[in-house]
């Protein structure tokens, strides 16, 4: 046989595996690493979701705060222009007349209420309170998740 003409020789890897990779120290993963990774992935997913919701709540809060401010200014102006204040003062100055003419008094009060502005004001107030509650809850959740992530990061050291 002419060995000079052979460029390389194919040999099954199995035969000298230990010789080839012998210099690499085998890494043994710590116990519970997989569950930690999965837990961390879950926490990151939760963190992303909470951050997204918190952003939405803050944007809605800014919108409703602006609406609340505008409705408050308009309501104050319309209430000053309407006869609501003087009519209500009759309850204290002339309670007997109020009771005697209760139907006309009630209608005059109802006619003086700036209904639509009061509706917008009450609605924006309700939404503001709801959003403040949600922001506080979600901020608490965010802090709790960040704390869990930090705890997990340092607990194996």
């Amino acid at each position, binding site marked *: 046989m002419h060995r000079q003409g052979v460029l390389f020789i194919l040999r099954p890897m199995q035969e000298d595996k230990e010789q080839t990779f012998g210099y690499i120290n085998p890494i043994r993963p710590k116990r519970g690493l997989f569950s930690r990774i999965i837990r961390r992935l879950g926490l990151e997913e939760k963190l992303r979701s909470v951050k997204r919701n918190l952003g939405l709540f803050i944007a809605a809060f800014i919108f409703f705060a602006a609406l609340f401010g505008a409705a408050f200014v*308009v309501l104050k102006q*319309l209430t000053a*222009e*309407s*006869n609501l204040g*003087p*009519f209500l*003062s*009759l309850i204290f*100055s*002339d309670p007997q*007349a109020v009771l*005697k*003419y209760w139907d*006309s*008094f009630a*209608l*005059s*009060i*109802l*006619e*003086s209420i*700036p*209904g*639509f*502005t009061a509706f*917008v004001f009450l609605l924006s107030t309700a939404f503001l309170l709801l959003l403040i509650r949600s922001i506080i809850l979600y901020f608490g959740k965010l802090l709790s998740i960040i704390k869990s992530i930090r705890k997990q990061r340092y607990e194996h050291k």
Partner: protein
Amino acid sequence: MNINKIVQSKVIIVIIVAIFELAFLAGAFNLGVRVGYHKARFSYAWGEYYDRNFGGPRRGIFGAPEGPAFGRSAFEGPAFMNAHGIFGSVIKIDGDTVIIKGADNMERVILISGETQINKFKGTLRKEDLKVNDKIIVIGDPNEQGQIIAKFIRVMP
């Protein structure tokens, strides 16, 4: 099925609350329609009888712009006048008729009858005691001529 469990279930409570809310909404809607009807009817009569009540066309001799009574507010929609009460300054007294200028700068005709109760401080007044520039609160009922038949008048100090 146990009737106690059904009665105590959250679904039943939600249904009851929903029915209460619907009843409240229906009541509020009905009240709004009633108040709107009175205001619209009074504003219509006020406009129809303006010439007779105030002695001149509502738009003035040279066609002055419309007043707020039939104008449109950005927040409140069509601005109709209160039909059952007014707070304003007396600008003219003519027998049983008193003309008042309200906070909206619109004049209203108030009719004083023998049954009208007029109070100032803790005492009562006669209709002759009313003076021009007195600030008064009137509670009453509208008539078909766009006037308010006064039941009670409080003269402000």
